[in-house]
C-alpha cells in the first residue's frame, strides 16, 4: 500500500440527525479528515443497501451511513428498519471477503458534533489501514 493512500469514503447522512450533527461539527469548527464526502438523504431508512455496494464498486474505499439514534428517528422507525438491512448486507459482504471496515454505520444525533468527528476519524483511519477497495471496484 502506498504511503500516501488517501481513502475515498462516501457517507450517507440522514437529514435530521447526522447531517445536522455534521453541521454542528462545522459550526463548532471541529476539524476532521477530509476523506469523507457526504450524500444527504432524508432518513437512514432511505438507504438501500445496494447503494453501499454501488459506492464500493464506483470508487469508494469505504461507506459510512449515519442516522438518528434508535428511537429518535424523525420518521419514528426509519433507522430501526434500516438497521436490519445494514446488519444483513454487512454480514453478506463480510462473508464474501469484503473487510468489515469498508462499511460502517453510526448513530449521530444533531447534538453530537464531537461524535461525528470521532466517527469520521475512526472510519478514515480504519480504511487507511486496510487500503484501497479491490473486490468490487470497477476496472477502468
Amino acid at each position, binding site marked *: 500500500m502506498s504511503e500516501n493512500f488517501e481513502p*475515498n469514503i*462516501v457517507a450517507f447522512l440522514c*437529514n435530521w440527525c447526522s*447531517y*445536522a450533527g*455534521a*453541521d454542528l*461539527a*462545522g*459550526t463548532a*469548527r*471541529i*476539524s*476532521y*479528515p*477530509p476523506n469523507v*464526502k*457526504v*450524500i*444527504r*438523504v*432524508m*432518513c437512514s*431508512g*432511505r*438507504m*438501500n*443497501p445496494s*447503494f453501499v455496494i*454501488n*459506492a464500493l464498486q*464506483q*470508487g*469508494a474505499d469505504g461507506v459510512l451511513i449515519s442516522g438518528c439514534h434508535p*428511537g*429518535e*428517528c*424523525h*420518521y*419514528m*422507525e*426509519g433507522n430501526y*428498519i*434500516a438497521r436490519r*438491512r445494514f446488519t444483513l448486507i454487512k454480514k453478506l459482504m463480510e462473508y464474501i471477503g469484503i473487510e468489515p471496515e469498508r462499511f460502517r454505520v453510526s448513530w449521530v444525533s444533531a447534538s453530537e458534533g464531537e461524535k461525528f*468527528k470521532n466517527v469520521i476519524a475512526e472510519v478514515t483511519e480504519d480504511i487507511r489501514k486496510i487500503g484501497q477497495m479491490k473486490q468490487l471496484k470497477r476496472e477502468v
Partner: protein
Amino acid sequence: MRKKIGVYVCHCGVNISATVDIEKVCKLASGLPGVAAAKDYTYLCSDPGQELIKKDIKELGLEKVVIAACSPRMHEQTFRGTCEEAELNPYCLEMANIREQCSWVHKEKDKATRKAAALISASVAKASLLEPLSEKEVDVIPKALVIGGGISGIQSSLDIADAGFGVYLVEKDPSIGGHMAQLDKTFPTLDCSACILTPKMVDVYRHPNIELLTYCEVISVDGFIGNFKVKVRKKPRYVNINKCNGCGACAEACLLKGRIASEFEAGMGKRGAIYVPFPQAVPLVYTIDSEKCLFLRKGKCGKSPACKAACGPEAIDFEQKEEIIELEIGTIVVATGFDVFPAKEKPEYGYDAYSNVITGLEFERLSSASGPTFGKIKIGGKEPEDVVFIQCVGSRDKELGNEYCSRVCCMYTAKQAHLVREKLPNANITVFYIDVRAFGKGFEEFYDRVKKEGIIYRRGNASEVYRRGEKLIVRAEDTLLGEALEVETDLVVLSTGLVQRDVGELKNALRLSQSSDRFFLEAHPKLRPMDTATAGVYLAGCCQGPKDIPDSVAQASGAAAKAIVPLATGKVKIDPIISFVDENICRGCGICITTCPYDAIELKEITRDGYPVEVAFVNDVLCKGCGACVASCLSGAIQQRSFTDEQILSQITALGVE
C-alpha cells in the same frame, strides 16, 4: 449536452474562501457536464447574491441551480425562494455544503478544495436529474381537536374557538381542569389556583365553538393534516348529562359515600361511587364509578339503587353503553399532561411505609381550603412541629432514567414551605435540595423571600427516611458542609417530579415520537417546539416536557396558533418530496406498505394489459418523504422524488471519481 445548470459558489465572506480555493472550484465546476455557468460571490444569500442567480436563471435560461455554500439546513429555503422568484421551480435546486462540512472542518486548503469540488460535482450530477415538483394543496376541515382538558388544553381550546373555529375538547376524566384544579396556591404570585382556573373552565363550557367531550378517550386517528378522522370512545357515566342538574342528592344517598379514595384529593379525601371529582367540576354532572358501584358490579345495591331513588330529574341510567363517535377535524392539539412521579419508586423515602411521608400534590390538597382538612396542615389529626421537604424526587435521577429536571418542584417546594410557615409559624422547616432552580419571572425573588422566612435550605440529597419512635428521621448529607446529618421530623413532603403519562395507543395513533425523557418529541427543540413530526398535530403543555403554569399556557396558546394556521388558510400544502409508484413495474407485494411508518401506502387495483393487478398507491398527504419504502422495494417501482435511486446513484458516481 445541453448546458442548463448554473453553479454558484459562495465565499461566505472568508468562511469558505479562506479554506477553499474558490477560483479553482469554479473552474472545475464550469467543466462539468451540463454546466452553463459557474460563478462565485461573496455572500450568495445576500440580496445582490440572489439577484445574480435570478438574473442568470432568466438570461441563461437555467433549468437547474446548484448552490455551493452553507448547509442546506441553513439556506435551502432561501434559495428555493430565489428560484421561485425567477420563475424556476424551487425543487430544481441542489446545494453543496462546502462550509459546515468542508471549509469549517478542514484545514489543508488543497484537500478542502478537492473535497469541495467533489461535493459540487455530485450536486451537479444530481441536479441534472432533478425534476420540477409541484406542491399539492388539500382542503382543511375547519375544526380542531384538543386532547386533554387541563390548563393547556383549556387554553388551546379557548384560543382556537375564539378565532372562530370549532373545537372538540376531549377529556378522559369526568371533569376538565387537570392537575391545576388540584393545586392550592400558585407560585410565585400565591394566587389561588381554583380562582384563576375555574372561570376558564366555565368559559370552555359556555363557548359556542367548543364541544366538550368529557369522560371520553381518543381511540384512533386516521387521515392527515386538514382531514383527520378521529374515533372517540364515550365512556358511560350511567348518568344522563342532559338531565343531571348537579344537585348531589345521589351522592348523598350512595351506600359507598365517603368510602372510596378520591382521585382529585390525591387519595387524601374520600368520595362515593357516584360523584363529581370536585365541587367546581365542569361539566357539573355526576358520574358513577362502574368499578366501585355495587349495582354495576354485583347487580344489586340494597333493594334498589339509592342514588336512582334520590335523583329528582331521573338522570341515572344504568343501561348506558359505551359509545364510539367519529369526528372529522383539521388539526390536533395534544395536551395530555403528565403524571406525578410515583413516589413508591424511591422506597428509601418510605412513602409507602409512613403515612406522614406525602407527595407534593398530596400537600396541595392538604393545604387547600377546599381540601379534606379544609386547609389545615394536619397529619393524623396533629399539626406537625417539624416539616422536611425533599427535592428532586424522581427528577435528575439517572438510575431511574429520569435525567431531566421537572422544572416546577423547586418553586412549588418554596411555595409549600411558605404555606407551612404561614399556617404553622413555629414549625421547623427544612428543605433538602441539590440546586435551586428559580429561573422564571419573579421566581428568584420568591425563593429569596421564602428563604428569609426562617426556612432552612440544606444543600444535599436526602438518602433515607425512617422512623425512630414518634419521629421520622431524614438522613442526608449536607454537601456544602460535607457532613452527614439526621433531621427529626413529623412530616416529609417529597417534591415529586413530573413524568410522561402513559397515553396508551394514542401515541401510535398520532404517530408521536418520544424523546429520551419519554415526553413527546417536538419537531425541533428550538424552532418548532409545538410541532410534531406528524403534520397537523401540535403539542401543548407538559406532554412535551415538564412546565409550570405560565409556560404551559404560553405553549398552549402557541400550539393553538399553530393549529389555527391551517384552519384559517383553509388549505395545506403538501411537501412534494414524497414517494411515488411506477405502476408498470410494481408487483403489488406490499412490502412498502408494511414498511411505511405512516400507513401512507395502500394497494389499489388497476388494469394492466387487460388483467386486474394490484399495485401500491401512495397517499400524497400521508407520506412524509422518509423514503423507507423506496429502499424496501425490490423492483425499484417506488421512488422518492428528489431522492430517486438514479439521482443518488449519480451522486455516488460523481464522488467515486477521485
